[in-house]
């Protein structure tokens, strides 16, 4: 039982982080290697807001979320916009560089020691009993709920929302999209803000659940394994990929060797790349696209 819960929680974390990669990739064919850092930044923004509005959680949360959205937009407008038309590698490298920059800034502003936004928000994180004697912490439960919520709304948005349809259109054929009067820059900016938002939500919740420090970055990095396993251009894929990776990781910890837990995602990834390079739900021509 507990195993199942653990798997679900981890999967939710990965899913929340992975969809950020997917969102950006499908519109601009860029792998955002700074996603981990951006999520971490989101968490720190929450921490900052929490220290400013001590014990007024709601405004703090709202401020933090707004800030993280605008961060995403800024990243695009200031940085990635210039990289449109450059070669993919250059764009990826830009995101890597951005990541390094962010890491430095975070240490600069909030120092390297661990922070606990939960306390500064004045929340507590009691553990709840769920079916079969298994237990789950409130924040973890929140993560699962959030993942469901985010994915639900994303699916809805992309399928029915006008901007969603535009987004998919822009992803498939930017030229035609522009011809049809779709403002590509707006679309890309939207994608970046959405991905940063989801990433930050993940970051915030993880930070609330188990403290906040630099290690967040590596978690973010690990989350692109699910994204690729599922197929970089498919949200559904990201969801399934997260499930697969999470379950294999948890099972490896439980039955084989805890040490494996940080290679397992990549082993799964390699296996997938050998068998089905374009991922579970990915479209095949993506291979030649990049």
């Amino acid at each position: 039982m507990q195993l199942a819960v653990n798997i679900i929680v981890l999967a939710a974390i990965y899913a929340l982080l992975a969809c950020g990669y997917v969102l950006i990739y499908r519109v601009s064919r860029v792998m955002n290697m700074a996603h981990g850092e951006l999520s971490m930044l989101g968490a720190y923004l929450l921490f900052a807001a929490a220290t400013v509005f001590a014990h007024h959680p709601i405004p703090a949360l709202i401020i933090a979320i707004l800030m993280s959205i605008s961060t995403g937009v800024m990243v695009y407008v200031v940085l990635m916009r210039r990289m449109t038309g450059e070669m993919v590698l250059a764009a990826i490298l830009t995101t890597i560089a951005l990541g390094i920059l962010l890491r430095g800034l975070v240490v600069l502003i909030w120092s390297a020691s661990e922070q606990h936004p939960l306390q500064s928000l004045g929340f507590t994180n009691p553990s709840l009993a769920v079916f079969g004697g298994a237990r789950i912490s409130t924040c973890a439960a929140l993560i699962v709920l959030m993942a469901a919520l985010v994915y639900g709304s994303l699916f809805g948005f992309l399928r029915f929302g006008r901007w969603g349809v535009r987004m998919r259109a822009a992803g498939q054929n930017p030229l035609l999209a522009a011809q049809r009067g779709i403002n590509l820059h707006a679309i890309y900016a939207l994608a970046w803000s959405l991905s940063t938002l989801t990433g930050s939500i993940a970051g915030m919740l993880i930070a609330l659940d188990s403290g906040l420090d630099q290690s967040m970055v590596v978690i973010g990095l690990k989350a692109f394994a699910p994204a690729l396993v599922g197929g970089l251009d498919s949200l559904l894929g990201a969801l399934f990929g997260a499930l697969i990776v999470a379950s294999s990781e948890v099972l490896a910890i439980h039955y084989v060797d805890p040490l494996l837990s940080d290679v397992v995602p990549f082993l799964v990834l390699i296996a997938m790349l050998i068998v089905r390079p374009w991922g579970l739900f990915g479209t095949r021509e993506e291979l030649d696209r990049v």
Partner: protein
Amino acid sequence: MSSRPRASGYFRTDYAADYALLGTRSARIWVALFSLALLLFPLVASPFQLDLACQVFLASVGALSLMLLMGYAGQISLGHAGLIAAGAFTVGILFRETNAPFWLTLPASALVGALLGVIFGLPSLRLRGLYLAVSTLALHFVVIYIGGEYETRRGFSTGIMIDPPQLGSLSVTDGRAWYFILLVAAASTLLVCLNLLRTRSGRAWRAIRTHETVAETLGIGIAAYKLLAFVISSSITAVAGALFAYYRGFVSVEAFSLFLTIQYVAMVIVGGMGSLLGALLGAAFVTIFPYVIESALLALPGAQGFASMLFAVNYAAFGLVMILFLLLEPLGLVGIWRRIQSYFLLWPYRHRPAAGAHQ
């Protein structure tokens, strides 16, 4: 290949001239002067500067091999640190287990590198660009894991110590000796690369990089050449790792983080894609830059007062500079270099002749 403008009045009169590494007299003179400077450097340099130079040479070897793979064969790889680690660990393990001398371990690591090259290269037969990059990245983690396991299982909790290599009776510890060894290593790597690029395979790689399908239709065996590129580059990289192990006198997984890969990719990009000179410039820049920033920051009044912040600044600055280069100078350092060069060559005219203006 060479898009450098030449002083007017220089014509190639035969194919030999086309193949000559150093076209003009002036080129030869410059190279001669430069190498002289390199030879004299140790006499004036402080040990710390020597160490920096050695680091630069080590980096150049790695950067050149990566440039071969990425800049010419057009295969993105994020497994570079993994390969360096593989080379280093080959030395470490062989030395620890069998106490093998360097003239055994170096070829061994080259061999291991070649084998890994095949493994790293296999995905490239099916994957391109991003997907390839990620698969190599995954392999990086696997290599590191294995290395780490060896370290702990054998109880080398603070890394594997390696004695300096024995040349006959004397053992190489002196900084100057290392300077020359690594200088030779870097120079020979450069020569190897230069010559490789002038062979059939070199041309094939460029063809593949520019357009894979077209290359295939031209009858180039894509698979073979891709693998070849990976094998060669990887074995050079592994040797670089081995040299690193001997130079530092120890091996430990922490030394081969993902950040190392990023640094090497940065060298290739900052230096300028598709140019060996770029690789060298990039290696020098990326290696020395942090120290320059550091000393610049420490030069500020009362710097020590808030040291921990300063170093965070240093860390961020590296990212910032990379961004600036990517945004403002896509051609990289080599682009700047060429601009300066052509400025002087073409003076007083401002534009170079259209032919070969862009590579």
